[in-house]
């Protein structure tokens, strides 16, 4: 059956798609070459033109605007798949640009969404304090009631004296061994002094012997302040390692403050419910005191760090500036947590706890 020009054109176009050359195709139909040539030239120009590619965003948008039954899943799901894959790659450390190269057809549509996703990811990167993690783990294991206390804080058994009594005994023993003068002198020592371990020991003893959770929280604030002073000293001496350790220590002290306040409030709620305390109200005086002290300390330490930036060795300047921001953030976080406990919402949740306990 003789083939029409349309069939020959179609066969040629198919052959071109398969990779045949222009000349090879025309050579197969010499009698129609004159007629076929201009048609093939036009067809090829259209195929090669970027104008022939529909804008993927437009295509997707048009499909989205169609009545529901015609909104096939193909284009949508492809875009969503590409977006999901790119988000996974970005989470895994790929750059946004690298990912867009994998999906050139969707790049325009995906790029702004990926930028939002990476921005959000950055905005939501919030680490809980390492100290809280440790303390929470101990509480969880203890609350589960079926396991030993955690091994990183081995419990020393002092059956006769009790833990506090044992610590008091240990202090007396240390004072006896090293002398009361040395023990007192250690309070002014700096991390690079020989007596500093004695100072650390003395602080641990003070925390252990604190008579109440309020007193312990205040002591933590005081010790955080002491760490800030020592940080400035170490920065002036250019001791980066000790400077870093002290900052971690400062953060740990501040992180303990809201935890202790919360524990105290829970204890208080229990006492109020069981009428061990007559007023029937939960008091917030100690939180107000702590907020005042923290407010004063954050100002004092900010000023102290700013002054120190001018005098520390050159290599410590940027560390000092960074520490200024970080230490402020530690204080801010502690203040925010306490303000929440002190707020109406905090009171609501505490009263909620009272109601639960009273059932």
């Amino acid at each position, binding site marked *: 059956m003789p083939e029409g020009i349309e069939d020959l054109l179609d066969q040629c176009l198919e052959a071109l798609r398969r990779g045949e050359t222009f000349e090879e195709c025309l050579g197969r139909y010499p009698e129609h070459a004159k007629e076929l040539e201009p048609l093939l030239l036009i067809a090829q120009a259209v195929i090669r033109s970027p104008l022939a590619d529909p804008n993927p965003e437009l295509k997707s948008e048009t499909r989205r605007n169609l009545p529901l039954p015609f909104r096939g899943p193909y284009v949508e799901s492809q875009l969503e798949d590409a977006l999901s894959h790119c988000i996974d790659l970005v989470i895994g450390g790929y750059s946004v640009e690298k990912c867009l190269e994998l999906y050139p057809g969707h790049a325009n549509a995906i790029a702004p969404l990926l930028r939002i996703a990476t*921005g959000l990811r950055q905005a939501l990167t*919030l680490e809980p304090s390492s100290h809280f993690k440790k303390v929470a783990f101990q509480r969880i*294991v203890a609350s589960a009631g079926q*396991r030993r206390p*955690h091994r990183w804080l081995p419990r020393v058994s002092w059956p006769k004296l009790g833990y506090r009594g044992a610590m008091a005994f240990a202090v007396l023993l240390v004072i006896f061994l090293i002398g009361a003068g040395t023990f007192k002198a250690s309070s002014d020592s700096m991390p690079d002094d020989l007596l500093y371990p004695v100072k650390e020991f003395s602080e641990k003893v003070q925390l252990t012997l604190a008579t109440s959770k309020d007193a312990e929280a205040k002591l933590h604030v005081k010790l955080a302040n002491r760490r800030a002073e020592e940080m400035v000293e170490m920065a002036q001496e250019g001791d980066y390692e000790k400077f870093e350790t002290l900052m971690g220590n400062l953060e740990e002290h501040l992180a303990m403050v809201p935890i202790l306040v919360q524990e105290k409030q829970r204890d208080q709620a229990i006492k109020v419910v069981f009428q061990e305390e007559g007023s029937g109200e939960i008091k917030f005086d100690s939180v107000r005191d702590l907020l005042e002290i923290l407010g004063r300390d954050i100002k004092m330490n900010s000023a102290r760090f700013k002054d120190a930036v001018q005098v520390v060795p050159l290599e410590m300047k940027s560390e000092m500036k960074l520490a200024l*921001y970080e230490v402020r953030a530690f204080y801010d976080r502690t203040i925010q947590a306490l303000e929440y406990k002190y707020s109406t919402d905090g009171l609501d949740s505490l009263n909620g706890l009272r109601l639960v306990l009273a059932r």
Partner: protein
Amino acid sequence: MQNEEQVVQSAKTGDDRAFEQIYEEYFDKVYRYIYVRVGNPPDAEDLTEEVFLKALKSIGSFQWRGVSIAAWLFRIAHNVVVDHLRRISKRQTMPIEDNVPSVGPSPHDKAVINMTMARLKKALTRLTQAQQQVLSMRLAADLSIAETAKVLGKTEGAVKASQHSALVAIRRIFATEYGDA
């Protein structure tokens, strides 16, 4: 975490160290997910602790079916958050506090970054609950599409669609309110 299945099996038999490995692996992710949903650090801390306490108490009943333990943990977290939100539903809004890391190359750049972050967080709170759930699992807790789908009891396609529509919605909020896109 090395060989998760083995670690989970050990934790089921009461091995503290094995449970600690799960705790270390997932604590931050669970915390971030909860923080995004409840909007303030003190509640996020309390609820994260509650999640791991429940996990420790019920890990004996966990059945390994080839799916990461993340799906199981986040299912607990999801329920804890839903209960919490129900309890405090009288509170109308729960803005996410601005805990933007206070580091930046210069005060001006820092201010710009902080402003953008604050706007992003604000936009996040205006999404539907389903969209917030998906974005917090994907972007705050780094869960995969499969894990997110498992936790939420949805198909992977539905999670992808939700993720896409959430990001488009944020883009629209930015374009409308701040003239950015």
